[in-house]
């Protein structure tokens, strides 16, 4: 066997498997997105089997673009992903700088901080929406109730009583409601992914050039200006990577949205696809193609960055 063929044979199984995995379902989605295809229809039973005779052209795409949930899903995705990114990057930077020093118990602090990242998404959502955020039985409800009781008790107090009479009675927030469900998801996902940002920033901080910093200190630069002028530029690349990897993961959030409110007031494209899939396969497929295009735009940037570091 020649020197060249063997390596090819060794990587062939992986390539073929991934090729099938990528091409077969995706080409079916593409095909379904151009035909009328529903799972149940009493009036048009011929639409319930996929066939070229049901060709609809770009009709499904037009239908999806006009559906009010589609625009909402995109806006909501931007809100969720954007908020999570801002929170995780800012918090991640602050915490990474905070623990990038020697102190007693540093190892334990790291272990505690990273733990949320390994919690499975379903447990994360169940834990937050029930045990923590529930307006009656969760910690939120208990805390709000406790504060109200405390203030109530203080109202009868001489002299200071009038001050507490001004305090409003706090209302616990229901995070399953239409207006708030997105914030519940933002909160739980940010909690889970901040550790990821911390871990990456910390790894990167440890490769920072210390002599530069020492020179800056000798020159009388304040810690803040050192952070802005030396550390942040050093972290530019890890920040970009954290942003892009998280975008890819969070654009396809599903379990959290499902568990918090079943999509009530809070949808993204994958969730919308799931809803369409219960009957209108054509629309679900067209939405899927939109989601693929969106993901690709982000992926191209990420691949460029990764590609640069690939061969060195």
């Amino acid at each position: 066997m020649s020197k060249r063929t063997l390596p090819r044979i060794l990587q062939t199984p992986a390539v073929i498997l991934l090729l099938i995995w990528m091409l077969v379902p995706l080409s079916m989605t593409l095909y379904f997105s151009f035909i009328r295809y529903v799972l149940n229809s009493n009036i048009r039973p011929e639409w319930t089997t996929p066939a070229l005779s049901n060709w609809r052209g770009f009709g499904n795409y037009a239908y999806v673009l006009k559906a009010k949930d589609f625009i909402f899903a995109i806006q909501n995705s931007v809100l969720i992903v954007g908020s999570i990114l801002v929170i995780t990057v800012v918090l991640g930077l602050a915490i990474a700088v905070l623990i990038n020093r020697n102190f007693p118990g540093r190892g334990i602090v790291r272990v505690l901080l990273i733990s949320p990242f390994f919690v499975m998404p379903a447990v994360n959502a169940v834990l937050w929406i029930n045990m923590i955020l529930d307006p009656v039985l969760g910690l939120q409800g208990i805390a709000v109730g406790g504060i109200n009781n405390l203030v109530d008790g203080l109202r009868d107090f001489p002299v200071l009583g009038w001050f507490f009479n001004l305090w409003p009675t706090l209302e616990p927030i229901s995070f399953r409601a239409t207006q708030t469900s997105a914030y519940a998801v933002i909160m739980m996902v940010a909690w889970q992914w901040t550790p990821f940002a911390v871990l990456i920033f910390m790894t990167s901080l440890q490769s920072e050039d210390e002599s530069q910093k020492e020179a800056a200190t000798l020159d009388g630069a304040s810690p803040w200006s050192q952070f802005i002028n030396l550390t942040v530029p050093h972290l530019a690349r890890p920040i970009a990577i954290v942003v892009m990897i998280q975008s890819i993961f969070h654009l396809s959030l599903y379990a959290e949205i499902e568990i918090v409110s079943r999509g009530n007031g809070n949808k993204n494209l994958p969730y919308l696809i799931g809803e369409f899939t219960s009957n209108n396969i054509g629309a679900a497929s067209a939405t899927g193609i939109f989601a693929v295009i969106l993901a690709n735009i982000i992926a191209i940037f990420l691949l460029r960055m990764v590609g640069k570091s690939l061969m060195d």
Partner: protein
Amino acid sequence: MAAVTERSNFGKIAWPIVAWIVALIFFFPIFWLVFTSFKTDADAVKPEHLFRFTPTLENYTNMTQNYDYWRFAINSVITSTFATLFALFVGVPAAYAMAFNPSRHTKDILMWMLSTKMLPAAAVLYPMTFLTKNFLGIFDTHFLVIVVLCLINLPIVIWMLFTYFKEIPKEIIEAGKMDGVSTWGEIKDILIPLAWGGIASTALLTFIFCWNEAYWTVRLTTIDAATLSKLIEGNRAPEGLFFGRLSAVSTAAIAPIVILGWFCQKQLVQGLTFGAVK
């Protein structure tokens, strides 16, 4: 390592305290989950029993009867283990070829593999259901879950192995060639012993990803091959009265992985950033 050296005594004491507080806040939800799992369902929702209660193990002893926990747990173990093994079985030779005999296309192939990871799963939800249910008849089988978990993680496996293998000096492998060792022998007797640490941490990380996967494992199973993700998602209802037992089963579902995760923090960075952050 570039850890900060404090200039003032104040900072020496204050910042570590802040760090500890932040870490405890982040860990608190997990602590609370474990804590609640030792309360009875009745105690778990009563403010007066927030901290004062008689700890009980009944939520754990009744886990089988309340949730059929072990069936789901065994499914998770089987599917994650075999998916990891298959991914390594396919990934090691591929990464070996790419690291030691790169061609002009190696970089492109690696990039393309990575791009398959970025396809939104939901886009192919119906075709996957359709194919596996009506066409192949493997819906809700361990086989299907194993194959899917293996394929979604294969790009990361190959990437991680590739970055580890690249650090091994080529000369060592080539010396083996001179001695007339076969390719299989090279992989088995030279590469695997040398890259053992890298392969082990790749396996560990893949196992974690498989265990926590919550899209395909939920949507391509009903009963027979359902994993812990499916179990928890199925019990998501606001079961106010069952916080205790829900906490116990959730704790049991995450404990193995959180503990495993503590051991591979470092590899996580490399695995998740595809070697772009070191």
